[in-house]
């Protein structure tokens, strides 16, 4: 500012004191600040005092406003400054009014001062604005209403929603609109130490500061909310720091769900361990030779079948077999012999393989499930089909065998075997007769299990046997194609 003209209206040595009626009354400040700028009162000659502020210190200041010259010169303020100033004025920092005036004063010489983000005053204003925005945002987020029933004039009970909230800054009045727009057709009150708001569905009323005791102490729905909070939390991903950053402890006392936090954090490690254990998965590496798999399956207790009195049966055949045949599980005979496909179904399979021209000694045969599942019926052990989950669990071993043998073609006998390879249950009649790609580049063919043929009689058996033979010949033809030199 150039000297002589700019200090025209100021009585030298005068110190002005402006008393604000409310701590969030930006419009009042704006009016007074405009007059002060018009009268060229420099920032260090004004004290801005809000209610409850230290007025006595400035007792000898001049409380009368100076009168600007007529016509008063225009006061400049950028839109960006006004928007920020209006919000920053809600901050609880008592020096904010002086900061706003200093920036307004500097604006008169530099209309683009707000662009200079490296300036200390600008940076401070932005910091205040940010803190207030954050506080408002947290008010939108953390106000928790509790419902009480209040009789209206006619004596009918009405739902009234009451919240207690403790803001850090003077933001209550400025945020009335948010809650009004959101809960327009609800009767609600927000009580805070800085004043209260009451909405009856039509009119907003402001009230004096309140006490926590004025708000209701609880609400039955909070139990449901707490249960939700505890259930939606994933104990496998504990990140307490991230939570504290956004939900600092000072808000906890008014959040019904926050009481659960210590318990949830403490229990998380145990719950994750439980989650993993419930899956009954051993997180160890898979053995990398067929011999070791053959040994390891004996100790496998990953599903209940392994707990029965039985012997694990490993697949057998050349380890470079182009064809792998997968059955369901060992039967009574296989369990006793410890070898796959030696019982009645195995014998039938051998017969048909020979008929189709598939040499069994060039084939790796194994089962989807490695242990025999049965129930006792008198002296007999009666076969029971493995459950989907048991097949899925045992798939781990089968995949170990597949990774080592690397067959060009896999033939699944029956639905259990198909599930072990595809991961889903398919219908044999729809899946048979065509190849399906597997993820390692080999292909899968599906056919019935020979024990199915054994259970049928008469015409049905003949029809199914024809289909079975047709599948086997198709497999042989395809195998020849795949293994032909140059393919």
């Amino acid at each position, binding site marked *: 500012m150039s000297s002589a003209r700019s200090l025209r209206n100021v009585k030298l040595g005068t110190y002005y004191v402006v008393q604000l009626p409310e701590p969030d009354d930006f419009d009042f400040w704006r009016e007074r600040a405009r007059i002060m700028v018009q009268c060229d009162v420099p920032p260090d000659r004004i004290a801005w005092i809000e209610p409850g502020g230290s007025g006595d210190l400035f007792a000898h200041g001049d409380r009368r406003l100076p009168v600007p010259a007529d016509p008063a010169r225009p006061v400049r303020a950028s839109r960006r400054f006004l928007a920020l100033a209006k919000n920053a004025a809600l901050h609880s920092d008592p020096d904010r009014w002086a900061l706003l005036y200093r920036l307004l004063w500097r604006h008169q010489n530099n209309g*683009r001062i707000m662009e*200079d*983000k*490296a*300036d200390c005053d600008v*940076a401070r204003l932005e910091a205040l604005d940010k803190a207030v925005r954050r506080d408002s945002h947290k008010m*939108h*987020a*953390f106000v*928790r*209403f*509790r*419902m009480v029933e209040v009789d209206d004039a006619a004596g009918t009970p009405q739902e009234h929603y009451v919240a207690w909230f403790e803001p850090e800054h003077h933001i209550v009045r400025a945020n009335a609109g*948010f809650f009004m*727009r*959101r*809960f*327009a*057709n*609800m009767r609600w009150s927000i009580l805070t130490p800085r004043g209260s708001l009451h909405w009856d569905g039509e009119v907003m009323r402001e009230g004096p500061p309140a006490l926590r005791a004025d708000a209701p102490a609880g609400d039955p729905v909070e139990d*449901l*909310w707490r*249960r*939700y*909070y*505890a*259930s*939606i*939390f*994933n*104990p*496998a*991903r*504990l*990140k*307490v720091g*991230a*939570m504290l950053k*956004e*939900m600092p402890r000072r808000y906890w006392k008014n*959040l019904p769900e926050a009481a659960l936090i210590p318990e*949830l954090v403490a229990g*998380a490690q145990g719950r*994750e361990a*439980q*989650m*993993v254990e*419930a*899956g009954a*998965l051993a*997180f160890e590496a898979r053995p990398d030779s067929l011999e070791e798999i053959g040994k390891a399956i004996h100790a496998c207790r990953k599903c209940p079948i392994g707990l029965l009195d039985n012997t694990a049966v490993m697949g057998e055949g050349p380890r470079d077999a182009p064809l792998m045949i997968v059955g369901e599980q060992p039967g009574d005979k296989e369990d006793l012999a410890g070898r796959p496909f030696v019982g009645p179904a195995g014998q039938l399979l051998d017969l048909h393989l020979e008929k189709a021209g598939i040499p069994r000694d060039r084939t790796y045969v194994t089962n989807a499930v490695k242990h025999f599942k049965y129930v006792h019926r008198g002296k007999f052990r009666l076969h029971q089909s493995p*459950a989907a*989950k048991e097949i*899925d*669990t045992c*798939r*781990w071993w089968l995949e170990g065998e597949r990774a080592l043998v690397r067959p060009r073609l896999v033939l699944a006998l029956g639905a259990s075997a198909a599930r072990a390879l595809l*991961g*889903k249950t398919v219908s044999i009649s729809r899946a048979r007769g065509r190849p399906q790609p597997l*993820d390692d580049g080999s292909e899968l063919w599906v056919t019935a299990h020979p024990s199915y043929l054994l259970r049928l009689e008469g015409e049905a058996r003949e029809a199914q046997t024809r289909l079975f033979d047709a599948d086997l010949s198709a497999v042989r033809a395809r195998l020849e194609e795949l293994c032909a030199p140059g393919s």
Partner: protein
Amino acid sequence: MAEMTLMQKLEVLADAAKYDASCASSGTARKNSLGGKGIGSTEGMGICHAYAPDGRCISLLKILLTNHCIFDCHYCINRKSSNVRRARFTPQEVVDLTLSFYRRNYIEGLFLSSGIVKSSNHTMEQLVEVARILREEHDFRGYIHLKTIPDADAELVHQAGLYADRVSINVELPTDAGLTRLAPDKDARQIEGAMGGVRMAIAQAKDEKKRFRNAPRFAPAGQSTQMIVGADGASDADIVGKASRLYDGFKLRRVYYSAFSPIPDASAVLPLKRPPLVREHRLYQSDWLMRFYGFSPREVMQATGEDGNLPLDIDPKLAWALKFRDQFPLDVNRATREQLLRVPGLGVHAVNRIIASRRHRSLRLQDVGRLTASISKVRPFICTVDWRPTALADRADLRALLAPKSEQLELFAA
């Protein structure tokens, strides 16, 4: 079995929904309940009403309508062959729960998903019914996110879009092979077909809205999707590539990444180790680089290591800068906006502030320090009037200098 209480159902069905990462309530059309009969408003910015100890925002009541399911996806706790406790809400129960939570200001709205019961269409009808009751009978104007079922009728998906702010369909796994293996009942082409359909409907509704003021809104907050990270062998490069195709092809608002986490009753075909949570974080960072920092997917992939994965110890932007050191240091007083966005440690906000400030003064290192969060990370890559990092930029151990000191990133790193 005795009928479950509402509390028990909520426990089961919220627990079942916790593996969905998204809880966003932002970016939808502005609306409020003034002049209406009900409650609710959305004002652009999403609000997180609480944070769980896993650091995730709780913005919506995120639940399943039911966790009964006829599908058998291996990574999913609700798959048919899993032994979890099952429960089912009626649409009215979900409506009542949503409203009573909303009235107490616990939530911004509802995120409803469901296991597939009976058929895809039946399930979709139930989801739409919940949204219909909320919108039509209660004039609810809060946020609704509906998960749509890929093979449900287009007409049902369309109705969902008319009631919901956002619709989403999960692509689940980054590669088709992974999907075939782990979600055998799902079909990649069908999922993408459904996403394409939603994209067209959103574009059409926007176009109509321009011409007719009263044209109905269709999913004003757009569509999103989720990918599970670490359940199959896909590398970060695969995932980044897939995400960028999804953003381009379907105009998605967000792609969420969810680090595969151990689930009770897990299926045996899943990997035995869970990926570190920080991998998910790095993917989000690379997502940001593509959406806000002008990086192309190819450039993000340049930041990956030989195994196709992003480094875990440093962020992808720093990894890129260390690979292309010849592009630095940049003069903050001269460099273009695009160039400044490549400086590790400078965010979009800081770059805007630098560009505004340098019109007024020649920036010194101290000024830059005031405009950014941390000067030490930025320093090796910039020049100012009083600073030139000659010695620093050529140091072979720059990475070690800048990588955060090895700290325990997660409590139970596998």
